[in-house]
Each structure stands twice: as structure tokens, then as C-alpha cells.
């Protein structure tokens, strides 16, 4: 939690925190190989919620891997807090489409897994923190259950608090709610907003759902089909806190239609 309190040492909220400068990438080093993403320029502010939408295979997960330091771009540079990302970062939490819980560990031990995996052990204090996170996610009475005893929505909550255990400043979410049913999906989205308000994080959120992006994000990056480039960067000027009422506002539909236009007519210039 401490990294949030001493935020006065950090740049102001409007300064670029995660920054892509002319980023392009090809997985295959051959000169003739196609670019997967191309000339991406993007500045994400500290504690901003940025959603990424775009057709399948346009390189959304590739972008996310670069911020995590799991992949170094072949062109351009990704930097965090003005330092280029050259290796996996400690201050990054990742949530995947599937919860990817370890089936041989209890829910609590799954939450503690990043510590166990990184350092080999954890303290009683860490366990206390895991219990707090479990309580925040409303999972206290499931702490000693095995993952397969939980519903899909609860499993993904565990996946989220596992990513929060090391108190990362950047949270990367790759289609985190795609496997959930519509009702669970909406609820867990609002819960994510609550968590994000109480524990501010820089959030990069990939989704296939246009309405989910509009409902949750501060800004939406719309990507073209492969090679993925920036089609538009849309400010979501809907007031917070957002709720199910937000969906009924005319501005919500306008923004959603704007994005739909890009996705269904991908040749419209930015």
C-alpha cells in the first residue's frame, strides 16, 4: 500500500507514466516478415484507466506483454516513468482471460502464489494481506476451498486479487471478463471500478466488448486490424462514479456508436 501514499514523489497525474513511442513489432526477425503492430504512440497517465479495443489478432496482447516487460518491441520504445522497459517489472500485475488458478492450491494459497513463487515463502503478515484482499473480493468464506469449487466469476475475482497481492502500480488485464456470463460480467466490472477507486492503479484493460470499454475506461484506444495501429484515442467524458444508469445516458450510446463505426468500417481514417 505504501507506494500509493508517497505519490507526491511521482509525476503529476497528467504526466506520461506508461509511454509508447513509435512502437512496432514483428515476432519473426526476417526482414520480409509482417509487422504485428506498427507506429503506436500512446501516453498513459498515472492511475488512468485505458481500455484497448480492436479486432482479434491486431496485437492487443502484444502491447500488454510489452508493458509487463515480457516482450521487448523490435521497433520504438516502451517506457514506464521515463525509463525504458527492458525486463519484467516488479510493479506490474497481470490478469488473464481465464483465471488460471492452480488447481492443487486452495484459494488463499492461490492468492499468495506470487510471493511463494517469487521468494519461496511468505510471512504471517502476507497472509493477513491475502485475507484482506479476500475480504475485499467477498471471498472470505471460500478462502480454504479449492478453485474448482468456485463459480467462474469468483475464480476471476481470485485472479484479480492475486494480481493485486504485490500491490502493483500497473494492472494489466487481458480480456479478463470474456469468459463470464453477462450478469456476472457487469457486476465484476463495477467491482473493479470500486477497487480501482480505493487503490488507484494505472490500468490497461483489453476487451472485446465496446460497451464494457465505454462503461469502465477514462480513455479508449481503438486499434486497426493487423498490423495494429492507433485508429483513435477516445476520451470517455462520462461522469464517475459510473453505474448501470450510465448505460442509459445519450453520451454513452454516442461513444459506443463512434467506436462501432471504427470496428465495422476499419478504413475510416483516425
Amino acid at each position, binding site marked *: 500500500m505504501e507506494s500509493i501514499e508517497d505519490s507526491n514523489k511521482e509525476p503529476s497525474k497528467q504526466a506520461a507514466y506508461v509511454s509508447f513511442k513509435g512502437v512496432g513489432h514483428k515476432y519473426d526477425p526476417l526482414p520480409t516478415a509482417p509487422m504485428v503492430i506498427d507506429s503506436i504512440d500512446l501516453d498513459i497517465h498515472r492511475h488512468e484507466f485505458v481500455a484497448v479495443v480492436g479486432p482479434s489478432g491486431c496485437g492487443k496482447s502484444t502491447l500488454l*506483454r510489452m508493458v*509487463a*516487460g*515480457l516482450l521487448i518491441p523490435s521497433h520504438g520504445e516502451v517506457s514506464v516513468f521515463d525509463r525504458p522497459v527492458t*525486463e*519484467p*517489472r*516488479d510493479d*506490474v500485475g*497481470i490478469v*488473464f482471460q*481465464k483465471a*488460471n488458478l*492452480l*488447481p*492443487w492450491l486452495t484459494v488463499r494459497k492461490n492468492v499468495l*502464489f*506470487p510471493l*511463494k*513463487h*517469487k521468494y*519461496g515463502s511468505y510471512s504471517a503478515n502476507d497472509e493477513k494481506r491475502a485475507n484482506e484482499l479476500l475480504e475485499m473480493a467477498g471471498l472470505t468464506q471460500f478462502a480454504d476451498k*479449492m478453485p*474448482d469449487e468456485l463459480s467462474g466469476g469468483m475464480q476471476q475475482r481470485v485472479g484479480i486479487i492475486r494480481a493485486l497481492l504485490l500491490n502493483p502500480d500497473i494492472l494489466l488485464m487481458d480480456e479478463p471478463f470474456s469468459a463470464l456470463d453477462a450478469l456476472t460480467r457487469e457486476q465484476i466490472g463495477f467491482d473493479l471500478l470500486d477497487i480501482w477507486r480505493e487503490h488507484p492503479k494505472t490500468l490497461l484493460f483489453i476487451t472485446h466488448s465496446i460497451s464494457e470499454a465505454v462503461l469502465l475506461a477514462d480513455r479508449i484506444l481503438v486499434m486497426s486490424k493487423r498490423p495494429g495501429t492507433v485508429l483513435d484515442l477516445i476520451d470517455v467524458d462520462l461522469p464517475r462514479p459510473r453505474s448501470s444508469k450510465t448505460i442509459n445516458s445519450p453520451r454513452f450510446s454516442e461513444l459506443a456508436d463512434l467506436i462501432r463505426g471504427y470496428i465495422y468500417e476499419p478504413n475510416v481514417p483516425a
Partner: protein
Amino acid sequence: MNQTFPLKSWVKQQANRFAPALFFIGLVLLWELVCQVGKVPNYILPSPSAIITAFFNVEFSRWMTHLWATLRVALMGFVLSIMIAIPLSIGMIRSELMNRVLYPALIVIQSTPVVAVAPLIIVLLGTEDPSRVLITCLITFFPLVVSTTTGMLETPPEMIELSQSLRAPRYRETWQIRIPYAIPHIFSGLRVSITLAIIGAVVAEFVAAEEGLGYFIQFSTSFFKIPQAFAGLIFLSVISLLLFKSVQWTQAWFFPWSLPKKK
């Protein structure tokens, strides 16, 4: 389900439940009948009753001596092949070079008929346990390597990314993620290997031995004690089945999460 005839449905249910046992008993009775009515000589096909008599005619301590000889070799070979196969698989997963060098060698070993090589191994290592254990090991370890590597490769790539993003040491990636994910596969390999281990031990006894169930069967056959050979064979099958079951029980006891989910 059938409200009007509860008794009838009960009978049906019980018949269903005991069907495999009833089928087996029926088969044995038929076998007995054919032997009795057809007056089949014992040295062609001994009747079940003759086999049972033959079983009890052999002293219990003799059975135990032979059983121990076979079991000892089978289990030592089995354990040795686990100790070789698991580290080998880990090495092959972790190093592309090791994979490229070792995989063809493993295929060559696997495609060599062990039965043909067994006499050479006995010449090389002598007629005691070491050569028998080696023969057993050669038969059992390939399925283990295949199942362990397959299992480790089935780890979700996201978990490997999680491990890398935490900058965890590679050995923890192996022990805390890859090996546990491979457990269901490793156990299917173990189930195959444990029955192969008995076959390996028996093959070794066929080549050179003074005791063991394989030796016992061969020796009984050569003295035309066919019912006794059959008794040895059935004893061997029961032991093999029990070992197979023990592997299943071990998995259910220590790794209950790794069993397929019941619907």
C-alpha cells in the same frame, strides 16, 4: 424410477451392478464345463478346478519366494526408471539443445526390442539383480518420459508468463508450475509403466533366473505341469492388477485434484 414394480427395478439395478462379476463367474463356469464334458486333457487346457488345486499344492513359502523375486526386480526397475525419466524430461523441457540431442537417442532405445537385447545385458552385467533391473528399466522408462514431457508442455502459457513477470527462478517455474500441471499425465505414464515393469521382470527371468514367477511359469511348463503354470500366470496377473490399482490409489490419495472431475 419404475414406481409400479419396485422389486423388478431393484433386481434390474442389482443385475447391472454385478454384471461384470457375473460375466466373469459365468465364463469360469463355462470353462470348467467345457473341460469336464469335453474331457480336455490338463496339458492342453487345464480346468479352473485343476488350476486351483495346483495353486494350493505349491507351498505358500515357495509362492512368496517367487513373488518376492519378481516384485523386487519390477519395483526396483520401476523406481529407477522414475528417477531417470523425470529429471530427463525436465532437462528436455528446459533445454532445446538437450531435447534435440536426447530425443532421437530415446527413440532408438525405444525401438530396440528389449527381449532381443536382454541376453546381451545378462552377458554384460551378470545373472544377478542389476541386469534384470536394467532390462525392466529399459522397458518402463519411455512411456514415463513421453507422459512427463507432454504434461509439462501442457502448462498454460499464461502461467509461464506469470512466472516470468515475477522473475522467479527457473527451478520454481519447474517445481511449482510445470511439474504439478504434469501430474495427471505423469500418473497415466506410471500406470502404463508399472504393468510394463512386471513384464520386464518376467522377460529377464525367462533369460536367466533361478527364482521368480516368470521362472516358475517357464519351469512348470517345461515339466508339463500345465495347471501349475496356469496358477503362476493367474497369480502374476493378479499382482500386476494390484500394482496398477496401487498407482491409482496413490494418485487419489496424494493428488485428488488431479483426477478427472465426476459429472
